[in-house]
């Protein structure tokens, strides 16, 4: 993406396990999240009430879900800008089918299939034809959104079985935790295991660090990337179905612009846009941080638009501070021969 080349020295890996665990950006974001939440509970009226957390977790679920596959894709050094359009497309699919009298459960399955195919198209264009993912997914961002808006026009389908819309809003027993959080947690566990504890996951990091080295190490790059895009499409479709039920509303412009805020949260959570580094705990904290800040500010009667500025500034700071710290480190230590990998 840039002419800037970040030297990645092996000294970054020289610290012992616990220091690496505590001093990475992901952990810092978790700490910031805890601080912000604590301050908000005491300083912002009504923020401490359980209902706030219910709404927060409910509304953040789509972003949390989409952030999972997005993290994996960015770690391979690629990007997927079409996710929010797939949310809209899945939502419209459910809407159109239910309107046409198809049982909603069948509509769910079709929407999931549509999402998977949308992801597959992305993946094949990127891996088989060898196109840059940024260009491809800018194209499919417009294409999928265009199909979604084209199918329904300005109409909205708002008539869904009460059982399902209630389920999307329901809470677990008497706790403030919404049922949808179970979905988020289950998928988060799946993705954490996939990324951090499987051969496939190690391959994802390897691809991000060096395509060529990964290929020599026997990682099937094309297959891995295609699978990731299919996963991304499918999870976006899940988010789209959930969105439809939660807001009882299938519209072509659902979740417009969500892709950029999800990517912002992923990068904020410590995933490098160059690929090769990052972990899911930081990403989930990043999504929650932006959501919590927005919610706290709204309750504090600060115009919620400030959240845009905060998101932007945090994002810029998170990348600039990393390279500033690296610059400090190299300026302090005597020049020594370190092996660098130019990317």
């Amino acid at each position: 993406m840039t002419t800037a080349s970040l030297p990645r020295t092996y000294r970054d890996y020289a610290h012992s396990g616990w220091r690496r665990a505590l001093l990475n950006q992901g952990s810092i974001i978790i700490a910031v999240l805890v601080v912000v939440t604590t301050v908000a509970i005491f300083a912002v009226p009504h923020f401490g009430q359980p209902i706030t957390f219910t709404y927060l977790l409910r509304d953040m679920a789509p972003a949390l879900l989409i952030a999972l596959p997005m993290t994996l894709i960015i770690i391979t050094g690629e990007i997927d800008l079409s996710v929010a359009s797939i949310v809209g497309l899945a939502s419209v699919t459910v809407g159109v089918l239910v309107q046409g009298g198809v049982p909603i459960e069948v509509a769910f399955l079709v929407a999931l299939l549509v999402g998977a195919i949308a992801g597959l198209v992305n993946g094949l264009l990127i891996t088989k034809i060898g196109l840059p993912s940024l260009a491809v997914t800018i194209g499919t961002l417009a294409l999928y959104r265009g199909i979604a808006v084209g199918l329904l026009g300005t109409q909205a389908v708002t008539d869904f079985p009460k059982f399902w819309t209630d389920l999307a809003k329901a809470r677990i027993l008497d706790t403030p935790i919404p049922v949808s959080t179970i979905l988020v947690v289950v998928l988060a566990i799946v993705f954490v295991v996939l990324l951090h504890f499987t051969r496939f996951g190690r391959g994802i990091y390897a691809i991000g660090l060096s395509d060529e080295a990964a290929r020599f190490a026997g990682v099937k790059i094309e297959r891995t990337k295609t699978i990731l895009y299919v996963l991304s499409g499918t999870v976006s479709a899940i988010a789209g179905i959930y969105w439809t039920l939660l807001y009882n509303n299938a519209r072509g412009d659902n979740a417009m612009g969500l892709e950029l805020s999800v990517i912002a949260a992923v990068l904020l959570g410590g995933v490098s846009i160059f690929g090769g580094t990052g972990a899911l705990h930081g990403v989930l904290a990043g999504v929650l941080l932006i959501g919590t800040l927005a919610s706290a500010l709204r309750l504090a009667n600060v115009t919620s638009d400030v959240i845009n500025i905060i998101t932007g500034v945090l994002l810029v700071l998170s990348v600039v501070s990393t390279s500033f710290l690296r610059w400090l480190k190299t300026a302090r230590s005597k020049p020594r021969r370190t092996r660098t990998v130019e990317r």
Partner: protein
Amino acid sequence: MNTFKRLITARETGILIAFAIVLVATTVRNPNFTFSGDGFRDLLVTPAMLIIIAVGQAVVLITRNVDLSVGSILGLSAYLTGQLFIGTDLPIPVVALLVIIFGGLLGLVNGALIALAKVPALVITLGTMYAYRGINVMWTGSDRVNASDFPKAFLEIGTGKLWFVPWLTIVAIVVLIAVAWVMRNTRSGREFYAIGSDPAAAHLYGLPATKRIISAFILSGALAGLAGLVYASRYGTVDSQAGYGLELDAVGAAVIGGVAIAGGVGTVWGAAVGALLLTTINRALPVLGIPDFWQRAVVGVLIIGAIVLDRVLAVRQARRLAKGADR
């Protein structure tokens, strides 16, 4: 003959032909699209804003960067234009100059962060896209600048024309020719290409990459500021959402016109023709009987078609070169 052949086979020509087909098909369906006074004016004036932004975006893309903040810079600049007219008695050229400088400064912030901190443009401009839009929304709130707040002469620039060409179109064409000339003929223009096609080689060769990248972003910002002026004078009302989402259109126009996301390839001509095609298709669809809800889908197909085409052409050329080397 050689020049003629090059002109015929140029990547830009293909898009121009596509534009011609759309134009002819639409005009056959409804002659007013081209031949009525309003139709002809709209045909020329509507693409002006996107052309200006796409030219800046193309220069940034050629250096292997991307500027996602242009829509937000446009919005801020358009609102600033209104506020300058409301709050001061400055003459129009001074206001215009101030707004363009303002856009350039916002671009400088992008460029300085990217080139000095050596962080990816995608991340920084995504961040400033939010930050600039946030500042805009905070500043504007639910307020808006109305046509009555602008001097009459300023709005006349938006509606008036020289002989048969609208002023705003002339502005876009002047920008296009100037930037195209610099990119093609000057040393610094060629350096943009060198930096984008092989950053490491450009560095070894001693090209001032930092300086060029910063200037590309300043240009992109200043042109977004200019586009803000165009927006204000064409539409007359500016709220906090002016230019929202335009960044993807600008990247799309450049990509359709053959500018490679990977840098080093393409011309600002191509980006301008891409912008022309995009805006015209958007207006042509309803005339052709396709509900305008399908606009975005068509745009998506165009972008994907364009990059697939570029890839196929590149592979063919590589094969031809390899064959030539064998001989």
